[in-house]
């Protein structure tokens, strides 16, 4: 049975996949499905409760919360995908290098990885974002760098396990170069756990981006971002709770969908895990 079939047999994974797809559609088609301009302010509609005109209500300067939630999906998805792509493109080659070469390169890379893992993820991301300067791009870079050691460690471990397999020895015996062995023989055999980890890392990156934006270190105002929407919402909890409910619910659903999909992929790609 193919892994796609195993994945689609898992209800939770299908729900996760459907939700991710819905958020992607929302982000891509934001200009067409957004009911209003997310940046348009209206002093006659400040902190209005949800109504027919504004389904999710309005914020402290009269902007439509639904429009900002729809456009905010772009920042969250972009941050999740771009920062994990950074982690993958840096972490996977370095991890394979460490695992394949062993000896001092492995020792050096492992110690640097340990040092990065010793700094708690969010604190490191905050520090990097603070030193790089507050912006969505820098937040993505900061999250990407902070998440890299997990991929180095995972890839290194998987490479160590695979490189002693008979088919790798055979590939070496018939004269394949090290680069070819790593790219053509090792990588395809370690890709499954990396894909699973990447999916779960997107969930963590979405929360991290929202956290940095909540602290003012991510997407800068007035551009919409769920984290920064929650930052302003916390000042109006008593008289405009809808400002906090919708962006928070959106973060929750997007993170939940990637977690469901990640769990489903792990079961589908690694039947031993079930």
């Amino acid at each position, binding site marked *: 049975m193919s892994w796609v079939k195993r994945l689609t047999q898992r209800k939770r994974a299908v729900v996760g996949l459907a939700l991710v797809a819905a958020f992607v559609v929302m982000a891509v088609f934001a200009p067409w499905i957004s009911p209003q301009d997310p940046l348009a302010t209206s002093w006659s509609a400040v902190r209005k409760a949800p109504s027919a005109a504004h389904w999710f209500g309005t914020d402290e300067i009269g902007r439509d919360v639904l429009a900002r939630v729809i456009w905010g999906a772009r920042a969250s998805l972009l941050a999740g995908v771009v920062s994990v792509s950074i982690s993958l493109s840096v972490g996977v080659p370095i991890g394979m290098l460490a695992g394949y070469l062993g000896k001092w390169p492995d020792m050096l890379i492992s110690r640097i990885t340990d*040092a990065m893992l010793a700094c*708690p993820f969010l604190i490191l991301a905050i520090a990097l974002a603070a030193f790089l300067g507050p912006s969505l791009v820098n937040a993505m870079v900061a999250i990407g760098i902070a998440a890299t050691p997990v991929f180095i460690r995972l890839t290194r471990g998987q490479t160590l396990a695979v490189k002693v397999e008979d088919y790798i020895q055979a590939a070496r015996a018939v004269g394949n170069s090290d680069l070819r062995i790593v790219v053509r023989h090792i990588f395809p055999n370690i890709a499954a756990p990396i894909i699973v980890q990447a999916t779960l890392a997107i969930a963590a990156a979405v929360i991290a981006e929202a956290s940095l934006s909540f602290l003012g270190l991510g997407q800068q105002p007035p551009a919409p971002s769920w984290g920064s929407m929650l930052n302003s919402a916390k000042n109006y909890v008593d008289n405009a*709770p809808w400002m906090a409910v919708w*962006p928070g619910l959106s973060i929750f659903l997007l993170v939940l969908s990637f977690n469901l999909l990640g769990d489903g992929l792990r079961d589908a790609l690694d039947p031993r895990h079930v």
Partner: protein
Amino acid sequence: MGDFLLRRLAAIVPTLFFVSILIFGLQQLLPGDPATAMAGEDHDPEAIAYLRAKFHLDDPLPVRYGYWLKDVLHGDLGDSVRIQRPVAELIAEKLPVTLELAGLAMVIALAIGITAGVVSAVYRDSGWDVAANLFALWGISTPNFWLGILLILLFAVRLGWLPASGYVSPFEDLRANLASMIMPAFVLGNAFAAALMRHTRSAMLQVLSSDYVRTARAKGLSERSVVLRHALRNALTPVITLGALQLGELLSGAVLTEQVFSIPGFGKLVVDAVFNRDYLVVQGVVLFTATVYIALNLLADVAYFLVNPKMRT
């Protein structure tokens, strides 16, 4: 035990060395002249001169690192440009508040996570199991700052049972202290409880199907005794490592929780420092957190060594 400890301590040295390089390297990310950037928007010449001298900015990079490391090893993390006080002193002042918050969060997480994990494993595939798994999914998917805002809305604004924000020292008024800390502690412990539940469930499922549990049942022991005295005790061993490592994560999560509830702890110190461009404080906090994390890792290994007889053979 002595050999084990020595080996672990020896392994920590290179990690600490690379941590120091990483944290020193943060300064190099600053655009332009580091002294001007670190002095903040005022560009106070006195502050720039202090930073230039403090970091030996006219010297080559390796020499600057040497000076910086020497100061750090003497407990000198520099002075806050904004507050004009030593960074180490500021961290020591704010730390007890965050430790109280992290400690309470840990207690809440252990109580909820272990109970839910045990119930879920013992009643596998029942309604309890489904509920506990849903709780775990909720826990790992909820941003804690959002949960904080929702709890403020419910318990402070709507019901008026708890204060929305602020901090009261336990030495001033213990009751008021607990009232101000219970919501933040729950918010901070929520994700850890979820992770703990998953780990406890999986460890319990493994232990419950082992031979010695079957033997305990065959001997006629009550199910309660089998679960609590035989299975749980062994299932909790790996949880020790997770618990110690999570305390480091709790310190990191406290940054957001303290921001939501306006708690004047270590997390608020770092956020204020970020906005005041007080980079020495940010650097000091990262260094301190990493050192605590490494120390906790060592403690976890020692505890694991002590409780797990297999490690001693």
